[in-house]
C-alpha cells in the first residue's frame, strides 16, 4: 500500500487509527470520576503528543539511522516557531505559509550548522551542535539581531507575540470586535472544537489536533519511506562502518548532511505547528533542556525503530502533564481507605515522585529502560509479543517452522 511493504503498511494503519481515534482512546475514564485526571484526551495535550512525535521522528532519522547524536535539535524547533509567528504577523493567520516558512528557516540553519558540525563525529559533533544551539538560544533570548536591526526580531525574554497593529497583508490586522485574529486553515480555526457527550464521558474533537495528527501521519509516512530507501540503507551503513563506506567509493558527508537537514526540517515543522496551535514563540523552546528532551524521547521509545520515537514522545509528554498534576490532596484521596497514620506515611512516600517530582519518576523509568531494555519501549513490546508467540509455537510448532522457511522466499 502506498509503496510500503505489508509489514510497514500495517504499522502505518495502526498508527493512523490510534492517532485519529485519540480523543476516544485517551479519555477512558468518565468525566468527573476519580480517575478522570488520568485522561489525556484534551486538545492541548494531544496536540503536544503529535507535535513532539514529529520532532522525535525527525530526530530519529538522524540519530537512529546514522548514530550522530545532535544535542542542539531544539534550536530548529525554536526557529520554526519564530518563523511561523513572523508569518502570522506579516502575511496572514493561515497556517500553511507559516508552516512552509518554518520548515525553510529550519532547513537553511540546519544546512549551515550541519555543514560545520558534521566535520566531526561522536562526542565532538554533539558538543558542536550543543554549542550552536546555546548560541542561538542566547541570541534569541537577548534579541541580539533585533537590537542591531532596531526592531524586535525574537523579542527577547518576553517572546514573540501577535499584536493588533501587525500588518498581516493578506489578512486582517484585527477582527471587527478589536481582538487579534485566530490561526486558521483557510478559515477553519485551530481552536474550534466539537464536544460529544456520551453517558458520563465528554469527548473533545479539536480541529487543531486533527491538523497536527494528519501532518504527523504524513511525516511518519515519509520517515518510513526514508527508512526503507537506498538512502536509508546508506545512513545505516554510515552508523555501522564509515571506513568501509569510504573504501566503497561512497562519500559520507553529503549523506549525513542531507539527513541532518531533513531532520532539522522535521524539527522546524514541529515548531511551526506549535506556533500554529498557540501563536507565540519564546527562546526557552531552544534551550538545551529541550534538546535533551527529544534525545530522551527517542532513546526511551527505541532509537532506530520506526514507532519508538512517537511512543517515547507520548510517554514523556503524558508524564509531564499528568503526573505533574497529582498533588497531596489527590494522594490523600487515593489513600483515604487506609488508617490515618498509614495514609500520611503513604502520601509522604509517594509525594516526591509526583507533582513537581515527576522528573524523578521519569528518571527512574529512563534508567530502567536503558538498563533492561536497550532497544527502548519497542523492544519491551517485542519481548512481550515473543512471549505470546512462543506459547503459540508450542501448539503449532510444525506449522511455524514451515512458515519460517517460507519467509525468506516470500520477501
Amino acid at each position, binding site marked *: 500500500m502506498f*509503496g*510500503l*511493504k505489508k509489514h510497514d503498511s500495517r504499522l502505518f494503519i495502526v498508527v493512523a487509527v490510534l492517532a485519529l481515534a485519540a480523543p476516544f482512546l485517551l479519555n477512558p475514564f468518565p468525566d468527573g470520576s476519580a480517575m478522570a485526571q488520568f485522561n489525556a484526551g484534551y486538545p492541548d495535550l494531544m496536540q503536544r503528543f503529535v507535535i513532539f512525535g514529529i520532532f522525535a521522528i525527525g530526530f530519529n532519522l538522524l540519530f537512529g539511522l546514522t548514530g550522530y547524536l545532535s544535542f542542539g535539535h531544539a534550536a530548529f524547533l525554536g526557529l520554526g516557531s519564530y518563523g511561523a509567528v513572523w508569518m502570522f504577523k506579516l502575511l496572514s493567520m493561515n497556517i500553511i505559509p507559516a508552516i512552509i516558512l518554518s520548515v525553510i528557516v529550519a532547513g537553511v540553519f540546519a544546512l549551515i550548522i550541519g555543514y560545520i558540525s558534521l566535520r566531526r563525529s561522536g562526542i565532538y559533533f554533539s558538543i558542536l551542535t550543543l554549542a550552536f544551539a546555546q548560541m542561538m538560544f542566547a541570541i534569541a533570548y537577548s534579541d541580539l539581531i533585533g537590537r542591531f536591526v532596531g526592531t524586535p526580531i525574537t523579542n527577547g525574554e518576553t517572546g514573540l507575540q501577535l499584536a493588533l497593529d501587525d500588518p498581516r497583508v493578506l489578512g486582517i490586522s484585527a477582527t471587527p470586535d478589536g481582538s487579534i485574529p485566530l490561526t486558521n486553515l483557510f478559515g477553519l480555526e485551530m481552536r474550534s472544537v466539537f464536544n460529544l457527550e456520551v453517558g458520563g464521558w465528554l469527548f473533545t474533537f479539536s480541529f487543531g489536533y486533527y491538523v497536527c495528527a494528519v501532518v504527523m501521519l504524513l511525516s511518519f509516512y*515519509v520517515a518510513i*519511506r*526514508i527508512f*526503507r*530507501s*537506498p*538512502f*536509508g*540503507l*546508506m545512513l*545505516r*551503513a554510515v*552508523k*555501522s*562502518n564509515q*571506513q*568501509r*563506506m*569510504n*573504501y*566503497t*567509493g*561512497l*562519500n559520507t558527508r*553529503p*549523506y549525513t548532511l*542531507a539527513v541532518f537537514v*531533513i531532520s532539522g526540517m522535521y524539527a522546524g515543522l514541529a515548531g511551526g505547528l506549535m506556533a500554529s496551535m498557540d501563536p507565540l514563540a519564546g527562546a526557552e523552546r531552544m534551550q538545551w533542556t529541550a534538546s535533551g528532551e527529544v534525545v530522551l524521547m527517542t532513546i526511551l521509545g527505541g532509537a532506530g525503530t520506526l514507532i519508538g520515537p512517537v511512543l517515547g514522545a507520548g510517554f514523556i509528554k503524558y508524564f509531564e502533564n499528568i503526573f505533574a498534576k497529582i498533588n497531596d490532596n489527590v494522594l490523600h484521596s487515593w489513600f483515604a481507605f487506609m488508617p490515618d497514620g498509614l495514609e500520611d506515611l503513604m502520601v509522604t512516600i509517594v509525594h516526591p515522585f509526583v507533582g513537581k517530582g515527576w522528573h524523578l519518576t521519569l528518571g527512574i523509568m529512563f534508567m530502567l529502560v536503558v538498563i533492561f531494555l536497550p532497544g527502548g519501549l519497542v523492544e519491551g513490546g517485542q519481548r512481550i509479543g515473543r512471549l505470546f508467540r512462543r506459547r503459540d509455537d508450542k501448539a503449532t510448532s510444525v506449522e511455524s517452522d514451515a512458515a519460517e522457511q517460507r519467509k*525468506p522466499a516470500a520477501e
Partner: protein
Amino acid sequence: MAILEVKNVGKRFGGLQALGDVNLNVEENSCHAIIGPNGAGKSTLLNCLVGKLIPDTGSVMFDGQSVLGRKPYEINQMGISRVFQTPEIFGDLTVMENMMIPCFAKRDGSFRMHALESIAHEKDIVGKAEHMLEEMKLIDKRDMHSASMSRGDKRRLEIAMCLAQEPRLLLLDEPTAGMARADTNNTIDLLKQIKEERDITIAIIEHDMHVVFSLAERITVLAQGTPLVEDTPDNIKGHPKVREAYLGETQAA
C-alpha cells in the same frame, strides 16, 4: 603495461623514515605480492595508494592518473578496492544489505539522494547482489547479521563486496592474517579463482609465504622502507638478501 606506478615515494613520521624511496610497477592483470618483515613499511605504502596517507615525496599513478591528494572514496571510484587486515564490513547490517551497498556505489557514484524509492524496487541491484552472493557461496547466509558470521565468511563477504564494484585493482592487506589453515586455503582458492575468471590486477601484502608463493607472479621485498629486490617467486625463494632481511642471517653465516 603497468596499471599502478609508484615513483620515488617517501613518507616520514616524525623521526621515522617509514618509506625511503619506493619504486614499484604493478603490471595489469598480474598478481603482485609485497612482502617484508614487520615495520618494513608495507602498510604505509598501501595507505599511500588508497588515499589514507599522503606521501611526502614521489608520485603514485593509477592507469595514467595521479591518485595523490584524492580522498579514499574518489580513489575507490577510480577503480581501486581494498580488503583490510581485519575484515571491514557493515556489521550491523545483513549479508544481503552489505552486498547491495557496493552495487549502489558502482551504479550511482559517491552520492545519490534516493530517499523515497524502495530498495525492494531496485531489481537490478537486488539481482546483482544475489548473483554475487551465489558466486561467493554466501547465499544461504543472505539474511544473517554479518557480524555474527565466522572470520572466513566475513573475509569472503568483504572480497565479494570489493568485486561487486568491478575494480581494476584489488589491494589485499594480509587477507589470511589470523585465519585457521583451512580458512587460509579456502581464501587462496578463492583468490586463484578470481584471478582466473576476471580481468583484475591483484596487489597483496602478506606474511604467510605459503599464500604468497601460491598466488604471486611478481614479488617485491620491502625492508626498512625501501624495496630490496623485485623478482619472480622462484628467484625470490633463494635470494640471499631476502633471507638476510627475514632471518637476520649475514653473508658470512
